């Protein structure tokens, strides 16, 4: 984890925060022991499956829910107990929640109007925001008269217009089709860079999280499992859940022979020796079986006997740029290998025996 930020650069600081819904036997712990620092100007993503608490955490930051315990500071100021209208934070809602009885321009100017800004300023900022999201031509339309992607832009402009310190985005792209979603991803990145506002983005889409974020917090069952850059989260998952949730992964069970600093010497399936990196602060018991993880693209096909492990091809699944080769190792464990395609590559036949060479340092031991 690389969350060692100086406290003075933290836009949002969350300490020992928990949120419990209901009481007694019906109580549901939606968030527990959340500790988090989000830096100023950062694109921060809360990633997890539905029900993991990511939206609850966002709603606590927005002020729609109050934390049960713990502290929440925005720009150094404790805000627990304050309502959403008293926090320098705006939200882009999942279904946009645009006011249907107002025009696009009125929607965008709403926050400034409620803040009591003079009319001229409201109009000037509205015009500025309209051009920022390229919606000048739609200013007088109603939300019902524009497309989903355009509504998305208006929702963004409305939330950005009051110049919040932090912008919260609750799965804002989930309602868009794939092409539009890709467009909006780069659009969001551009807006974040241009405005310099801290973005907190909630999504269950791991690809979206990897492409857009400066840092990602992977959540499950109300807890943050791992916090780090997209690179760290993808290449160095600390737990099985994180590895499984993000990208395709091979899990291999193997015995530890020796521990050498941060590297464990292991016996690979098939009997050859190998090395696997250890997660920080984790010491496996010698001789015990551990679970290791390796990404499908970090393995190369070689001739049988030439690699670290031998396997037999089950089948090959072609999907354009890549082919996934499903294999069975000699000890019976399943394995997937991803190979990039060129015009010349041919799919290996089922039943072919081949060797697998692991990229150096790619094999990692998981904590749990």
């Amino acid at each position: 984890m690389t969350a060692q930020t100086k406290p003075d650069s933290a836009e949002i600081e969350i300490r020992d925060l928990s949120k419990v819904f209901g009481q007694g036997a019906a109580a549901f712990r939606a968030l527990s022991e959340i500790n988090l620092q989000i830096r100023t100007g950062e694109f921060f993503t809360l990633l997890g499956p539905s029900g993991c608490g990511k939206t609850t955490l966002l709603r606590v930051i927005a002020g729609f829910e109050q934390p049960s315990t713990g502290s929440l500071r925005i720009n150094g100021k404790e805000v627990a107990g304050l309502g959403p209208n008293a926090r320098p934070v705006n939200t882009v809602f999942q279904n946009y929640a645009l006011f249907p009885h107002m025009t696009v321009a009125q929607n965008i100017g709403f926050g400034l109007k409620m803040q009591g800004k003079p009319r001229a300023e409201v109009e000037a900022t509205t015009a500025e925001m309209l051009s920022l999201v390229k919606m000048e031509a739609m200013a007088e339309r109603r939300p019902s008269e524009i497309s989903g992607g355009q509504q998305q832009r208006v929702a963004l402009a409305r939330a950005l217009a009051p110049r919040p310190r932090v912008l919260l985005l609750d799965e804002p792209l989930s309602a868009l089709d794939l092409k539009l979603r890709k467009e909006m991803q780069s659009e969001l990145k551009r807006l974040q860079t241009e405005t310099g506002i801290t973005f907190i983005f909630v999504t269950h889409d791991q690809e979206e999280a990897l492409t857009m974020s400066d840092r990602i917090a992977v959540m499950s069952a109300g807890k943050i499992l791992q916090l780090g850059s997209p690179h760290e989260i993808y290449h160095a998952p600390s737990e099985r859940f994180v590895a499984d949730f993000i990208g395709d992964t091979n899990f291999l069970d193997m015995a530890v022979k020796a521990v050498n600093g941060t590297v464990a010497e292991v016996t690979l399936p098939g009997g050859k020796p190998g090395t696997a990196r250890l997660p920080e602060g984790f010491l496996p018991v010698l001789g015990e079986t551990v679970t290791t993880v390796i990404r499908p693209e970090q393995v190369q096909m070689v001739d049988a006997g030439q690699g670290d492990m031998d396997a037999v091809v089950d089948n090959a699944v072609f999907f354009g740029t890549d082919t996934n080769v499903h294999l069975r190792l000699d000890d019976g464990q399943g394995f997937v290998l991803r190979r990039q395609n060129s015009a010349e590559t041919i799919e290996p036949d089922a039943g072919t025996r081949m060797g697998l060479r692991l990229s150096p340092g790619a094999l990692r031991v998981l904590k749990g």
Partner: protein
Amino acid sequence: MAEAPERHGWKWLLCAPALVVLVTAASGPLLIVVAYSFLTPGNMGGVVWEFTLEAWFRVFFRRDIFDPESITFNQAHLTVYWRSVWLSLQTTFICAVLGFPTAWFIATRPPSSRTLWLFLITIPFWTNLLIRTFAIQEVIRNNGTINTVLLQMGVINQPIQMMYTDFAILLGMAYVFMPLMVLPLYAAMDKLDFRLVEAGYDLYASRVQVLWHVILPLVKPGFIAGSILVFIPAIGAYVTPRVLGGGRTMMLGNLIALQFGQGRNWPLGAALAMLMLIIVVGALVFYLRWANREEARNV
């Protein structure tokens, strides 16, 4: 294609039951009332089949008994019309002001208990209107509940006159017609997307601002439907003004009933009723046009 018109030739017969109901139950009686308003009153009630405009003339004007040439406006009739419209508008307003928080309360309950609250709202409908009205009388009459309590507490020295006043009629009508406002308002609130309310708070609006700028514009269709449902029966109300207003504060319903009863002037009663219908329909058209123009501007 060639067969199509032929088929339509007999298909309309399928509408016959509906047409029969519409003609006999809705249009028929109305046409009879229209016809009666142009006939001559019979001596013992009823009508004589002789065409005259006398009834319509007497709705607006009156002749001096001793000098048939001296014609004046019929102040009594106009006063009753004006009072009916004014009391009905006030009733609608009271129902809207009190109905809004009531409907809001129900709409914000957990879905499981909403049915119970709606049921409670409609319970008064299950009791006879006359009995409910007498119950109100029991509460507000000079030796009724309110006056007795206030007298015994020493707040007042003599009973407050509440019966036979406009206040009594307003209280009675607001009580009777409240569900007609609450139900459409609730329906509108039930459809309200509460995320819009959250969006309002998120964009720095206070509670009052959210109410004014977000909630009220969005539940306006409920207000429009509720206002129509309350105003129309209110303007023709008979029992409530009769019991709570006594003979002193007469409303249209009572005036019309009087002409068909003791007045023994059926054509005049019919003409008064037709005028009421014209006023209601006119007001409705005007109101809906106004509301729709607002709608076109706002939604």
